């Protein structure tokens, strides 16, 4: 680190009430190199980027120093002085690119305002694999990935030697992530110094240079990227790395087709006026097994889940619950309703926001005869490793992981046969994701459930599922 072009020294960020969010962070971006800062949601990594630009949200205070090569150091709280570095010295590629573009102005004019004259625009677009006509569009017509590349192209047009990319892959699917990585490598190749902030392992692996892992506002480990990823020294780094589904041990496939919890035959569905999403789809879910359904977003995964749950009628085909065809005989839905349940993508939203959790659980007694929540819940909570005192809180006062386990507890109280889990871990951090998946597996094995797991993350599915259906295969 002989020649850092940007160095952050002893940066501490605290709330007005003194609560510290980022503690004593020191970082250096080497000239022409890449520094990747990786951490979970809420670890404080984005605050560091904001502090470098003097753009901390109101109510937060920063101390420490920020220094650019060849310039006197600037106090981290001096946002006016920091704003003097914008464009000329440092440039930001923000997260949520759609928010960074004026929704009422065409791209060409926004690029022009960023300093790219007309001749410079076309090569810039070509360099980032953007169609030429995209400059004549309004931002809303761009996909997230395109907007991202527009911002990168604009940033490239700005001469700043240092570029900070804040969560450049947030909300992108796997293919777009690869593109984004390529884009950043292009920037690095063009000689810019990069500070990349991410929660994405793949990105960290793909970028050369230095890697720093941040946890709860403290840097826990740093070093050469390849070295840290191969053999993390800190406990946290290890745990985190192991949470990658690719590192999980694969489950054994079982296929006892004699004991089916759910089956479907010849299913077809499509929206009016659009081609069918799928047709001729068969599936079999034996008890004690996990069936994975994968497919591209918008491909009908959630619709299929609704059909399997009896919430939506297919255009053709049958769905059998314990041998009864709920498509032909909708009254069967009412009979078996509580046995077929769903685990939602957003666990906090699956609870009524204005009622305490305890009340929501007690209410179940009115729909399930013979259920005593007071008796049945405590052992369940213990098994799911949920602290019982959470029950007095409102849903928004608990974490996503806790909420997902409580959602599971609520389903289990109804004594289900099948649980359909729609992207149950996509909003959870990797470590929590791993724990939740392990728990689901254990429940399937112990309680004899059938689990349908819907996700776009093939690696995750492959590591836990006994069988997999790719929805794209049934496209018309």
């Amino acid at each position, binding site marked *: 680190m002989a020649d850092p072009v940007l160095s952050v020294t002893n940066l501490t960020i605290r709330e007005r009430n003194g609560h510290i969010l980022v503690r004593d962070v020191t970082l250096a971006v080497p000239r022409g190199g890449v520094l990747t800062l990786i951490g979970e949601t809420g670890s404080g990594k984005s605050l560091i980027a904001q502090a470098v630009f003097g753009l901390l949200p109101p109510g937060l205070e920063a101390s420490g120093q920020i220094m650019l090569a060849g310039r006197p150091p600037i106090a981290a709280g001096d946002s006016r002085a920091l704003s003097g570095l914008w464009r000329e010295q440092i440039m930001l590629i923000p997260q949520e690119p759609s928010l960074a573009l004026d929704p009422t*102005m065409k791209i060409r004019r926004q690029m022009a305002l960023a300093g790219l004259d007309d001749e410079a625009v076309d090569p810039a677009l070509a360099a980032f694999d953007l169609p030429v006509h995209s400059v004549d569009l309004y931002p809303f017509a761009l996909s997230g990935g395109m907007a991202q590349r527009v911002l990168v192209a604009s940033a490239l047009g700005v001469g700043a030697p240092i570029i900070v990319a804040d969560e450049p892959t947030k909300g992108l699917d796997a293919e777009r992530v690869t593109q984004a990585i390529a884009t950043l490598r292009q920037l690095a190749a063009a000689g810019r110094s990069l500070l990349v902030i991410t929660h994405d392992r793949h990105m960290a692996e793909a970028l050369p240079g230095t890697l720093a892992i941040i946890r709860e506002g403290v840097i826990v480990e740093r070093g050469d990227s390849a070295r840290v990823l191969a053999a993390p020294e800190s406990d946290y780094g290890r745990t985190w790395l192991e949470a990658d589904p690719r590192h999980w041990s694969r489950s054994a496939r079982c296929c006892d087709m004699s004991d089916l919890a759910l089956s479907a035959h010849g299913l077809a569905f499509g929206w009016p006026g659009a081609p069918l999403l799928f047709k001729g789809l068969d599936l079999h879910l034996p008890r004690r097994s996990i069936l994975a359904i994968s497919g591209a977003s918008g491909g009908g995964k959630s619709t299929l889940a609704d059909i399997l749950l009896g919430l939506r009628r297919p255009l053709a085909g049958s769905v059998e619950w314990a041998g009864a065809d709920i498509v032909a005989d909708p009254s069967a839905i009412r009979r078996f309703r509580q046995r077929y349940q769903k685990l939602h993508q957003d666990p906090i939203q699956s609870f009524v926001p204005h009622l305490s959790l305890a009340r929501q659980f007690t209410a179940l007694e009115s729909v399930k005869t013979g259920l005593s929540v007071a008796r049945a819940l405590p052992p369940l909570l213990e098994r799911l490793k949920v602290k019982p005192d959470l029950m007095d809180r409102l849903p928004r006062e608990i974490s996503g992981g806790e909420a997902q386990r409580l959602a599971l507890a609520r389903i289990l109280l109804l004594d289900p046969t099948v649980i359909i889990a729609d992207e149950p871990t996509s909003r959870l951090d990797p470590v929590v994701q791993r724990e939740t998946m392990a728990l689901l597996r254990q429940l399937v094995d112990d309680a004899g459930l059938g689990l349908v797991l819907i996700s776009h993350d093939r690696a995750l599915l492959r590591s836990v599922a006994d069988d997999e259906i790719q929805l794209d295969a049934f496209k018309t």
Partner: protein
Amino acid sequence: MSVAKATNTMLRVILLRVGQALATAALLASLCFAFVHMLPGDLALRVAAARVGDERVTPETADRIRREEGLDRPLIVQYGQWMKSLARGDLGRSLLSGKPVVQELAYHGAFTLQLGLIGWLLSYLIALPLGVFAGFRPGGIVDRATDVLAVTLASLPTFLVGIGLVTLFALTLRWLPPAGFRTSAHMVLPAVTLALSLVAFSIPIIRNAVLEVRAAFFMTYARVKGLSPPAAFRHHGIRNAAIPVVTFAALQFAFVIDGFVVIETLFNYPGLGELLVKALIARDVPVIMGAGLVIGFSFAIVSLTADLLRLWLDPRALEAVRV
């Protein structure tokens, strides 16, 4: 989205809205017809009283008017007649003055339009600078002062504002005439009264629009890209802030009409509100229906204008239109 497609969308919006406007207007007028005839009391007698004066009205006058105006025909025939002439663009004649309803509406409508436009313009002359300034310095002295002003004005009924202004400027200071419509001096107090009632609601809207746009990340990002704060607001702020303001300004039209009834009575101003109130008292059916038609239609036209403005200002709206 291509230019042709955008134009096409615009065209469809216009056609749809004009169709809606016509339907709304006809429906309102028909409702008025139903209302007037559902009511107890002798219609012809009401008309007679309004025509010849209360004290000279006799049952004979009422009978003559009933005969002359065809009020003795079955209702469905009268309604059919009205719809038929409406299709020809003829709104009939006032039972009171005998003049064509179109002429009455045009005469009074012109006054209302004039007062409405001046009042509306004036309100934005007051609200825009104050709202924008307050939005730039939230929590500052101007922001707090305009907030107090807006809340105060919002809590005062229009007639109290009018009485206050008349008492101060016409009766005490004697700067302006208290009532009438003949000169521009006569317009000042009614227009200011109207403007103040509008300002109460437009200031916070403008302030919040400016505040929101200034807080938007694309404004910050524009500065990161190197624009100065004024340049960033000029390029990215004005248009975005104008979107909610335009939508609201159209909504205010309904309030403008409400305000007219009170203001025109208070200032003896011969606008549509006054015409309508008089026609109601006299049960002048053709004028009531005509006024219903005009008010319904003009409201629809104002919303159409607002829609088009919004489409022009906000390309996202164009995308969201589902005709």
